[in-house]
C-alpha cells in the first residue's frame, strides 16, 4: 500500500464532499440527541439524589440497589434490551424512545451518584443555619445546599456530561441517524473510510475544549485534595 492509497482511503476530499450533507445531518442529530438525553439523565439524577436525602432505610436500600443495577449494566446492553426486548412484551418503541429510556436509567444513576456525593459534601451546619432562620427543608436544600453541592462536584458533572455526549454514538446501533450512524451509512456506500474519519474529527473538534477544561479542573482538584 502506498501513502497515496492510505490518503485515498482515509482522507479523500472527493468522498468527503459527497458525504458531507449526510454527515452534517448526523451531526445535527447528535446535538439534538444530546440536548434531549443530558437534561433527561440530569433530572433522573436530581430525583435520585433528592430521594437519597431522605434518611429512611426503606428508601435508602432500594435506591442503592437501583443505582448499582443501572451502573452494572453496560449502557449498550440496556439500550438493546429496551429496543429489541420491549416489542416482545407488546410495546413497540421508536429508536429515540428506546435511547431516551436507556439513557434516563443509565445516565440518571451516574448523575444521581455524583449529586448525592455533592450533597453529602455540604456540612450539616449549612442546613441547620438555614433552618434556624426559618427556611423550610426544601428551601434550605434549594437555596443553600444544592448550589454548593453542584459547585463541589462540578468537574464530575462536566466529566459525566462529556461521557453522555460521547455515549450518544451507541444510538447508531438502534439505527438512530446520529453522526456515527450516518458516517457508517456513507462508508458502506462509498467503500471508503473517509466518512468515519470525518465523524471522528467532528467529535474531536466538538469535545476537545471540554476535555481541556476538565483536565485543568481535575489537576486542581487532585492538588487540593491531598
Amino acid at each position, binding site marked *: 500500500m502506498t501513502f497515496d492509497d492510505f490518503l485515498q482511503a482515509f482522507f479523500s476530499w472527493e468522498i468527503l464532499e459527497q458525504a458531507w450533507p449526510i454527515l452534517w445531518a448526523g451531526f445535527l442529530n447528535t446535538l439534538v440527541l444530546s440536548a434531549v438525553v443530558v437534561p433527561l439523565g440530569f433530572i433522573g439524577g436530581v430525583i435520585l439524589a433528592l430521594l437519597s436525602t431522605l434518611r429512611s432505610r426503606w428508601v435508602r436500600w432500594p435506591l442503592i440497589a437501583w443505582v448499582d443495577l443501572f451502573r452494572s449494566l453496560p449502557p449498550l446492553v440496556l439500550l438493546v434490551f429496551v429496543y429489541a426486548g420491549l416489542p416482545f412484551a407488546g410495546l413497540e418503541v421508536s429508536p429515540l424512545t428506546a435511547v431516551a429510556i436507556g439513557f434516563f436509567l443509565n445516565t440518571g444513576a451516574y448523575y444521581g451518584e455524583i449529586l448525592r456525593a455533592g450533597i453529602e459534601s455540604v*456540612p450539616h*451546619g*449549612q442546613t*441547620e*443555619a*438555614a*433552618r*434556624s*432562620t*426559618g*427556611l*423550610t427543608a426544601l*428551601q434550605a436544600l434549594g*437555596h*443553600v445546599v444544592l*448550589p*454548593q453541592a453542584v*459547585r463541589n462536584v462540578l468537574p464530575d458533572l462536566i466529566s459525566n456530561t462529556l461521557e453522555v455526549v460521547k455515549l450518544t454514538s451507541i444510538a447508531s446501533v438502534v439505527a438512530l441517524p446520529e453522526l456515527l450512524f450516518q458516517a457508517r451509512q456513507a462508508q458502506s456506500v462509498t467503500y471508503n473510510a473517509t466518512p468515519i474519519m470525518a465523524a471522528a474529527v467532528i467529535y474531536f473538534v466538538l469535545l476537545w475544549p471540554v476535555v481541556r477544561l476538565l483536565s485543568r479542573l481535575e489537576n486542581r482538584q487532585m492538588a487540593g485534595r491531598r
Partner: protein
Amino acid sequence: MPGPILEARGLHKHFGHLHVLKGVDLLVQERELVFVIGPSGSGKSTLLRCLNRLEEPSAGSITVDGIDLLDRRTDINKARQRIGMVFQSFNLYPHMTALGNVALALRKVQGRGRAEAEARAREALDRVHLADRAGHYPGQLSGGQQQRVAIARAIALEPRVMLFDEPTSALDPELVGGVLAAMRELRESGMTMVVVSHEMGFARAAADRVIFMDGGRIVEQGPPAAIFGAPQEERTRAFIGQIERNHA
C-alpha cells in the same frame, strides 16, 4: 413585671440510649442575658438547640414570645424568625456574599422584595460594623468577621431572643474581641440572649444570670458574682476552678 419571653419546662432529650437532658426548666425574662456554662457533654448545647427545635425534645414544653413551639399547629419556620441563632462554626453560606447570606431569609421566608431585603441586610451588617464587607464572600473574611456576619444574619430577622452556641470557640484569640463587642452592643440595645460559652470574662461583665449545667441538669444558677465568687455546689466550684486555672 411581664411574664418570661422564653419558657422551657421539663425538657428531656434522648439520643438512642443516651439521656442528654434530664428535665431542664429555663425561664428567660425580656432583655435578660443568660449565660450557660458547664463541662462538655453537660447538655448545654443540646438545650440551646432544643430551644429553636433544631433538636426535637423528647419531652417537655417550650414557649417563646407566647408561641407554643412544640404544638403541631405551630409553623416552626415562622416561629424561628423570632429566635435567632449563632453557631460555633459560623455556618455562613460560602456561595453567597455577606449581603446574600443576610438577605436570603428576608426574601425567602419573609417574602420581601430584593431591594427591601438588601436594604435591611445592609442595616444589619452596619450594626456589626461590616457594611463595607457586604460584597465579600465568607472565604474572603476573617473568622471574626464571618461570625459577625452570622450575627447580622440572625438579627436582620428582628428576633425576640438570640441563641449563641459557643460563638467564639472556633476563633483565634485575637479575633474574639470583635465578636464579643458585637454581642455587647446587641445586649445594650436590649436584646434577650441565651449564650453558651466559656468566655468567663464576658460572663462576669455582661451576664444577668449564669447557669451551671452538668450531667443533663441545671446544677446551680444565680448572678455572676455569686456563681463565680461563691458557688454553693461542689461540682460548680470544681468546674470554675478548672476554667480559671486554664485561663490563668
